[in-house]
């Protein structure tokens, strides 16, 4: 399947997501996409921003799709760390979309990201979204939302956090947030999300770098 065929299958989701991330990526830069899926973002960045990109993925089907599309992809478990492959400051950007919450040690991986890359971009579901809060507070069960569709027992998401949690972790790790945006699962942003992102944002995207060095 080509990039175009794939993009045509789910146009509304992709265009906003890709457009948003692309704006943060300088043309001609080097990019590592952790949990790259079928390589759609990398294909887009290669086409529109002329980046030199590599993907990291664990799923066999995604790997095959990447190979078919000519995307450089490495089959690696993010929980094993990235030092087997990458040297310090190897990339301009290390991107991780919707995988942080499924990693054994998100703190270590964030540090790893900024070891091999100069800047990082992550997106994750916001556990502090008002619907999650209401479900937990009034209904007394783990949240079931558009951004968090799994049951507690079979969810891949083992380290859920709120925007506040993430920002606290960043400051603890000496990470400076360059920009952030709160979105709905279709990657649209509303006035409410911009006003109180930790309450109204369902998905958060952060762009960050090391404070020093």
């Amino acid at each position, binding site marked *: 399947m080509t990039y175009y065929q794939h993009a045509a299958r789910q146009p509304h989701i992709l265009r906003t997501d890709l457009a948003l991330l692309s704006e943060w990526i300088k043309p001609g830069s*080097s990019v590592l996409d952790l949990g790259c899926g079928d390589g759609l973002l990398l294909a887009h960045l290669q086409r529109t921003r002329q980046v*030199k990109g*590599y993907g990291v993925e664990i799923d*066999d089907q995604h*790997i*095959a*799709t*990447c*190979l*078919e*599309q*000519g*995307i*450089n*992809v*490495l*089959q*690696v478990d993010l929980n094993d760390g990235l030092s*087997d*492959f*990458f*040297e310090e400051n*190897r990339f301009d950007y290390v991107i991780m979309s919707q995988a942080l919450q499924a990693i054994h040690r998100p703190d270590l991986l964030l540090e790893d990201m900024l070891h091999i890359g100069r800047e990082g971009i992550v997106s994750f579901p916001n556990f502090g979204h008002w619907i999650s809060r209401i479900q937990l507070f009034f209904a007394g069960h783990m949240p079931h939302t558009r951004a968090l569709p799994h049951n507690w027992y079979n969810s891949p998401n083992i380290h859920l956090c709120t925007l506040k949690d993430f920002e606290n972790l960043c400051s603890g790790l000496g990470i400076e947030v360059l920009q952030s945006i709160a979105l709905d699962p279709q990657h649209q942003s509303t006035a409410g999300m911009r006003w109180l992102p930790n309450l109204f944002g369902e998905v958060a995207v952060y762009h960050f770098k090391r404070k020093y060095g």
Partner: protein
Amino acid sequence: MPDTLPTDSVGLVTEQQHHFDEPLTLACGRTLPEYDLTYETYGKLNSNASNALLICHALSGDHHAAGYHDMADKKPGWWETSIGPGKPFDTNRFFIVCPNNLGGCKGSSGPTTINPETGKTYGADFPIVTVPDWVESQRRLGKALGIETWAAVVGGSLGGMQALQWAIQYPDELRYSVIIAAAPKLSAQNIAFNEVARQAILTDPDFHEGHYLAHDTVPKRGLMLARMLGHITYLSDDAMHVKFGRELREGELNYQQVDQVNFQVESYLRYQGKNFVHRFDANTYVLMTKALDFFDPAKDYDDNLAKALAPIKAKCLLMSFTSDWRFSPARSKEIVKAMLHHDRDVSYVEIDAPHGHDAFLMPIPQYTTTLKAYMDRIETD
């Protein structure tokens, strides 16, 4: 061989041979004044010669990679799982060339062929050949067949080392390199296993310093032992456990005689060893293990693999198998890391397989699917 040829097989194939008059100077300093390469081809070369795949064989492999020589053949070529119509190395798309390497014993010049300078079989006088020597000779074969640039050079194990060496040695003459279950150089443990295998052969009383054919004999025991040892390293502990466990051959242990086979695994190894003696040459085995031991592209670059791989232009695919302890995934990752250092186009696939090193010859769905996906890309790129 089944009564009818499977539709996804290349079917009946015939080996071919090319004679080279141009002398070939080897890494050891010696020169072969003339030599032959025996090879097989599958599929058709297209009009602009852009669809050629070179398949490089491993230690005990040869040029017969796919199909059958005869309707009575019990087994097809060694990589039948991957070569044929609709398979990853799709003969509907690619023109596939697989030579028997120099120093081999299946038709190409080697210890069992006649030394043109003496009129006698080479035996132990055949020079030590290296992976770069093979690349050189394979390149000449390609040119003889009208191939200036390979769509891809492909190999597993020692064959993968050739695919890597090709990308280093002639970076402009291949578009892709597919390196499967390989290593950038052997570890001390790898060399140790090879040394035990060599010693088994060299100390066999029938070895006669490599000139056993002149004595009308072959060092059967040594070659058999070498093969038995090799087989242990090709399988994982788990694979051996599943295949044999502690299953007994006769139902009970024999407490009377120490030379009796008790366990199935003993029987299997003896069978493999004995079988090998009939189809392989001991001098060739020794030469192949030397080629493995000596392979080390980083040697001339201060042991810096990244420096050694700097010339590579081909896009590369590295594949490894989780249970392979002979050339483990970590060894493939060393190569990937060195390629990434230079921003090369490289992909890495780790196949979850319990079979050990031998997995690269097996029909494992994840392996076949990803390899085919990559090869399909090569054809359209």
